C-alpha cells in the first residue's frame, strides 16, 4: 500500500510542479496568444488566474499548441 501512496503523491507532486512552471510562462506570455482579452487584463487578475492554470495546465497546453499550429 505504501508503494501506491508513494506513486499517487509523486504523480500529484509532478503535476503541480509542471503546473507551476507552465503557469509562470502562460500567465505572462502564453495566455495572450490564445486569448486576446488577456492583452489588457491587469496583473492582479493574472495572479488570481494562477491557481486555476496550475490545476488545468494539460488543457491549456493543448490549446496553446493548437493556436501555434494554426
Amino acid at each position: 500500500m505504501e508503494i501506491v501512496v508513494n506513486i499517487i503523491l509523486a504523480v500529484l507532486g509532478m503535476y503541480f510542479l509542471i503546473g507551476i512552471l507552465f503557469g509562470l510562462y502562460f500567465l505572462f506570455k502564453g495566455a495572450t496568444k490564445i486569448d486576446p482579452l488577456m492583452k489588457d487584463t491587469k496583473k492582479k487578475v493574472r495572479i488570481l488566474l494562477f491557481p486555476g492554470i496550475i490545476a488545468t495546465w494539460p488543457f491549456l497546453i493543448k490549446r496553446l499548441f493548437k493556436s501555434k499550429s494554426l
Partner: protein
Amino acid sequence: MGLDYQLVLWNKFKKTYDKIIVLAMLLYVILFAAITLTFNSETSIETLIIRAFGSLAIIMLHIILIIGPLSRLNSSFLPILYNRRHLGVSMFIAALIHGGFSIFQFHALGDVNPIYSIFTSNMDYGSLTNFPFQVLGFFALLILFVLASTSHDFFLSNLSAKIWKRLHMMVYIAYALIIAHVFLGAFQQETSTFTIGLLITGFIIVSGLHLVSAYKEHKVDKTSTNGTENWLKVCDISEIEEDRAKIFTIQNERVAIFKYDGKLSAIHNVCKHQGGPLGEGKIIDGCITCPWHGYQYLPHNGQSPPPFTEKVSTYQLKLENKTVFINPKAFDEGTEVEPCKY
C-alpha cells in the same frame, strides 16, 4: 461580458449577495462556537475551528447543490443561482480552513511530511470502521480547489464550455467523498444520531430535488408540438408571460419563445457563454438576459449587442388567432427574423 477580464464581476446585487454570504458564514461560526463551548467548555480552539468550518462547508455545499434544481422548479430562486460561483469559492475557503487546521493539528507536528502523513499515519485501508477518512477529505479538497480556481470567465472561455462544465460536474464526486469522509471519520470518534440524521436528510433533499427537476425537464422535452408541413403548433399566446419565455423542444433542440412589447421571437435556448437556459431568463433593457451570468442577446436576431460577438440560432414564428406556430427549421446563428406581432 467585457473587453478584458476583471478580478470579480461585481454589480450592486452581487455585492449584496456576497455581503449576505460573508455575514451568514460569520454568524454560523460564532453560533457554532457559542453552542459548542456552552456544552463542552474544554474544546480546544483548533478543534472548534476544524469542526465549525467543516460543518459550514458541508452546509454550503448542500445549498450549492440544491440551487440548480430549485431554480428549475421555481424561478424565484434564480437570484441565488446568479451568485452560485461566489458561494462555491466561499465554500472552498471554509473547506480549506477546515483542511488546513486539520493537517496542522494532526499531521504537521511530527517529522513526517504532513501530506505524506495524511496517507500513511493510518494504513488501515481495508477496514470500514477504521478507514483513514482524512484521505477522502484530502481528495475532496483537491477537487474543490480545481473548481474554485477555475471559477472565472477566463477558464470558461479557454477550456471551452464543454470541458469547463465537465470539470465542474466533479462537484458530485467531491460531495460523495465528503459524505464518506464525514461518515467514516467523525462518526468513528463521535457517533451522534443527530448529525447522522442531518447528513442523511441533506442527502435525501439533494438527490430528491435533482430527481424532481430532472422529471420536470423530461416533461419539457416531451411537450408535444403538432402541425402540418413547415409549421408546428406550440401554444396559446396567453401561456407566455410578458418579458418571459416558454421553452419547447423542437426536433430535439430546445427553443425559447419570448413575448415582449407586443411581439414574439424565438431563439435557441442555450446561452453561448456557459450553456445557460436562456428561456429561463427574462427581457431586460430590450435584451434576452441569461439567468446564469447575465449574457444578453437581441430577441429578433439572437446576437449579443455590440461590441460583443456571441450569437444563437433564431426561428420563424407565426400567429393564427391566438395560437403560436413555429417553423422547426433553425436559421443560422445571428440571423435576423421579423418578430411576430400580436
